């Protein structure tokens, strides 16, 4: 899954993102935690992607199809960026 997501991002020319590990959580599909799984099986990740507003739609069009049918939450926040020359 992780690789599918990053591949989709790369395919969409979105090269800036960060992946954080997730310990567990709860949602529509009930509580979930690493503990209920044999550890060789995969875990969950949080993907942070900071980008210009005008590129947001592009991102969402790219990523949502990959996530469709999968559990998870997508949310958008405004933020101000320093060292903006990097974007």
């Amino acid at each position, binding site marked *: *899954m992780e690789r*599918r997501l990053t591949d989709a991002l790369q395919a969409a020319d979105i090269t800036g993102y960060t992946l954080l590990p997730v310990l567990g959580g709860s949602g529509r*599909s*009930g*509580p979930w*935690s*690493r*503990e*209920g*799984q*044999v*550890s*060789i*099986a*995969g*875990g969950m990740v949080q993907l942070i992607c900071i980008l210009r507003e005008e590129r947001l739609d592009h991102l969402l069009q790219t990523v949502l199809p990959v996530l469709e*049918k*999968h*559990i998870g939450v997508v949310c958008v926040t405004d933020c101000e960026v320093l060292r903006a020359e990097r974007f």
Partner: protein
Amino acid sequence: MNDIAQLALENLGSPLILSFVLGLAAALARSDLSVPEAAAKALSIYLLFAIGFKGGVAVAAHGIAGGLLFSLLAGALLSAVLPFLAFALLRVMTKLDTLNAAAVAGHYGSISIVTFVAATSVLESQGIGSEGYMVAVAAIMEAPAILSALWLVSRGSGDKRMDATLWREILLNGSIVLLVGAFLIGWATGADGLSEIEPFIVAPFKGVLCLFLLDMGLVAGRGLLRSRDLINGGLVAFGLAMPIIGSLAGLAVAALLGLSPGGAMLLMTLSASASYIAVPAAMRVALPEADPGIYLTLSLGITFPFNLTLGIPLYLALSQALIG
């Protein structure tokens, strides 16, 4: 019958099973005992490497005697066919819809490598030999069942679930690659290679397996707690009946292949066991609508403990009575 009872008792009293029971009990009592994810993964890497390597060394020592190819073929076939049996049984015994039934069925065609390892340990304790290449058979049985499950889903809806990427992900799954790779290394280096790393992969093996089973008990117990509302009588009955049916299919195939009693017992165990690593990972990608609470709990919470405690001695007794 007496023999089975005694074997089962002996099996139940081994540190391996008791470690699993300890984990299960701790989880059900809601203790916070837990094995860190990285440690559990390291343990499973150790077990896969050791079991693959020793299988390869056994093949190097005794040769494959023509049996390897046929056994691989038979294993692949068993893995592909068992899901249909499981699917039919699920439609009769439970109220699962097609999607979930197919997902569960895929798990029972595939195998649980830890159950296999535990069976090997019992054979060793009893001093019973077996074909070294059964490790390769275990590896080949991981994947075909997934195809059958996806076919069962797409049959009705025409929905295509399989693509090249997924196929590749399944076959290059870490546990398959490690098992097969270690098997090949063991085969290539033979007894010389074994003597170099024997104090690492042979002597401490059972102790490591104890800790791994402790973790499996914790995982199974927590899964049962979390999914207790999903699991009803029909599902439990399926989770106990299917391994026995699977093992009989394995026994029949073993007889056709002319395997030794030990090898037959291992093929029975493979057929009886249900996957909780490779297949769930594939299902999460290919059938995300299916409920992991159902298929994981069945394979890990019902069938795995059953095989570990009662199944393995049963399969051993049957294989020795009918093939020995």
